[in-house]
């Protein structure tokens, strides 16, 4: 694709330049005042463009009295809830001209899948490369990447498959590839690759969903196999266990990565991403360990081209310092739909490691907001809905 791409529209080109430059000047302590002002200007400009060209989003903003010129700061840009990506076509450009349409898996309701339209993937690519390099590959240019996920060709609408494929393309050393086909995870091929890496002393990076690793660990446990992967080996996982029969805590999973694969805890990195945005948030553990910094609590970092707010679901306003709330993403790379997205995930901001106060660009992800479960009769609603669903099937 590279090289044959059409010229970017002016705003997109400026966003791309800025993201790439921000990535080069990346300061783990967070943006300075100057960077903050630039982010604000670009965010408001992108908002004005999306307001203009994304008809349902314009209507959403008008209902909230928000329009370009009437809002002064990025925090005032109305975030769209995830359900908007299911109910509406939130695209600035004609959807049929999109270079990619990424869809949610629809694990909760297959009939209603969220869709995010991308007129091109240049910003998406820039975002994914910069974050991966910064948090997962600070020490080298390339690494043998073993992917526990189907290749993109097999899942053309999966942002995850695209993401992992791009990583292999950009950073994969010889021997990289996917170990999942139509049949599922090819455990034999993967264990052979691990044994080879162990034998040859070649560091590897494993990439996949948390659940895919459970399959691998189960298989290793069944045969009693374990590896001590060479220094510099690392592991990236994402996602939870929604709709799966088994749930394993992140801590238990990391402990198993240590005993079965020989990867130190800090070199096991979890990232948080979703179809509806174009940025990923990584654990800071690997980079910190590489820099020789104190380990500290496990947190995720917000990259320079994004911002995160933690809001009260009742009021939509920010929660008091340190309290949990729903996450709102402001993502300059999410050019094709809406830069401001209200997630269904719960988290809280981490205290600034330097000052111990608010204003941190790090946060703790706590998981998905559960459905209503409350006093008395309402406890039954889920049960009732389940009964209702059962009847329909």
């Amino acid at each position, binding site marked *: 694709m590279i090289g044959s791409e059409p010229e970017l529209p002016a705003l997109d080109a400026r966003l791309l330049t800025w993201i790439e430059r921000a990535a080069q000047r990346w300061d783990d302590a967070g943006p300075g005042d100057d960077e903050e002002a630039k982010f604000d200007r670009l965010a408001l400009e992108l908002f004005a463009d999306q307001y203009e060209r994304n008809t*349902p989003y314009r*209507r*959403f903003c008008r*209902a909230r009295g928000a329009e370009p010129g009437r809002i002064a700061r990025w925090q005032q840009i109305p975030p769209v*809830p995830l*359900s*908007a990506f299911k*109910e*509406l076509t939130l695209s600035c450009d004609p959807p049929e001209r999109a270079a990619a349409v990424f869809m949610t898996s629809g694990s909760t309701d297959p009939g209603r899948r969220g869709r995010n339209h991308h007129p091109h993937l240049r910003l998406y690519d820039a975002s994914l490369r910069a974050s991966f390099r910064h948090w997962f590959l600070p020490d080298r240019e390339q690494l043998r990447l073993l992917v526990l996920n189907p290749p993109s060709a097999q899942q053309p609408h999966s942002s995850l498959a695209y993401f992992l494929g791009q990583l292999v393309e950009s950073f994969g050393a010889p021997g990289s590839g996917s170990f999942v086909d139509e049949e599922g995870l090819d455990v034999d091929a993967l264990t052979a690759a691990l044994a080879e890496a162990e034998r040859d002393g070649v560091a590897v990076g494993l990439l996949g969903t948390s659940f895919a690793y459970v399959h691998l660990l189960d298989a290793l446990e069944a045969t009693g196999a374990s590896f001590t992967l060479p220094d510099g080996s690392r592991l990236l996982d994402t996602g939870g266990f929604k709709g799966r029969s088994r749930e394993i805590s992140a801590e238990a999973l990391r402990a198993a990565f240590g005993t079965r694969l020989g990867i130190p805890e800090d070199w096991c990195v979890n990232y948080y991403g979703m179809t509806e945005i174009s940025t990923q948030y990584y654990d800071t553990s690997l980079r910190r360990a590489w820099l020789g910094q104190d380990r500290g609590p496990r947190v995720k970092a917000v990259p320079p081209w994004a911002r995160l707010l933690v809001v*009260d*679901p*009742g*009021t*939509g306003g920010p929660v008091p310092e340190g309290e*949990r*709330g*729903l996450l709102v993403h402001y993502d300059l790379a999410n050019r094709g739909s809406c830069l401001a997205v209200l997630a*269904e995930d*719960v988290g809280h901001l981490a205290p600034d490691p330097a000052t111990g106060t608010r204003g941190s660009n790090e946060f703790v992800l706590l998981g998905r*907001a*559960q*459905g*209503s*479960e*409350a*006093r*008395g*009769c*309402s*406890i*039954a*609603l889920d*049960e*009732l*809905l389940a*009964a*209702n669903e059962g*009847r*329909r099937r």
Partner: protein
Amino acid sequence: MTRLPASDAVDAFFLPQLDAAELAVLEWTTRPVGTVPLRFPVVTPELVEQLCDRLLQAQADELAERPVMEVLEVLGRAVARWYDPSCPQRRRAEELLPGITGYAPEMVRRGLKEHLRTFRRDRLLRFLAQDFDNPLVLDGFHPNRAGGRSRAYGPRLTTQFFAGNVPGLPAWNLVCAFLVKSATLGKSAGAEPLFPVLFAHTIAEEDPGLARCLAVLHWPGGQEDVEQTAFARSDAVMATAGLRATESLAQRVPVGMPFVPYGHKVSFAVVGHEALALTRFADTARRVARDVSQYDQQGCLSPHAVFVERGGAVDPRAFSAALAAEMERYERSRPRAGLRFEESAAIAGVRARYEFRSYDEDQGVEVFSSRHGNAWTVLFEERPERFEPSPLNRVVRVHPVDGIEDVVPHLLPLRRYLQTAGIACAPERLDAWASLLGRCGADRICAVGQMPQPAAGWHHDGLGSLASLVRWTDIEGAAEADVERYDPEWTRPSGSSDGGPR
């Protein structure tokens, strides 16, 4: 008004069966419910065994042979004490329940008062009359229609699982058990464990003997050893609980023992075109708003949806706007309880979904909602896929219909869960509507505006509140005639030959 020091926990148990020394050796725990710290004994199978033995003894001594009308008078007098604003237990309830539940103080105050009206002395008579042609069958054998005589025996001891979603609800179950002369081992709800304790104290002031037939405790639901011990000594189990808890109980209640579950129910309202006349629609909207808002829609009696008939002076969409205005008015005087994170997120989710659908005119969707925060939400939806339960906390859907027949398809999938149907229509349509709604599964037809207050004696969830607890003993008519043969006067050996049956 007395204020508790923060460190002082409130006793949330009622155990008149135990003396001070016996109470002192129990293990105790304190835990905050809402903002109120409550003190509970830790419940063990041994404690339950001891209590059941004493409850059974108290029932034999105090209740089994006491005339039902005497029991009724005691209950009536106990309830009457709560009409007095200075009644200590009522004051305690009004002081503490808002903190425990989060409900607005004014709503708790009025809600309790309105609920307890259901148990005035004269209403208690209706409970009896609803289930028994002659309530004296609870005291002795009285003629039945089959030509013999019958007596109804309540359980000696009933294990009860109380509801905690709406303060005051356990009064219904307690009263029913007493009226059939059953002692009660009551498990209070974790969300609101205090009301049954306060109510029990009032009964104790009125009649300590009767109160010894009642114990109120809290244990974590599903604690099997405790519940098994209780069931083994009880004659009946009555439970207000969710589907899963009810299913779990149903598996563990011994076969053949009366099990009276009041599970989760869904209620709704149907508004006919007559109630949308220019002179009526605002009042109808006010009544519906009250039904939805009372106790933040937490009760089974609260409507999830309102079906509004087309063809009135005001169309269903305009009615939704009127309803929204009344929801706002109710909120100002009785604000909804603060919500937990998940509850707020659920409301935000459903609001967003409907808002996006409303962008497409063809969808026939409109969202009316409180301007700030999520205090109330009215979702107008012309073509619902199905009857969708509300996430509660004052979220109600309005669906237009062309007649009562249009409502039926929405009700049928939920027929096992339907309960109250609030209706507003012309008198000549009442019977037809009630027949149809009853066939769909509704077990209570009431006026819109009265949904939260079931009338005394209602066949709660379609069952006889008292009848479901009793078992019958019949003396056959032929037996009565036949025993005449054994009248000693006839069987006495004697030389006399005149008289006597041949």
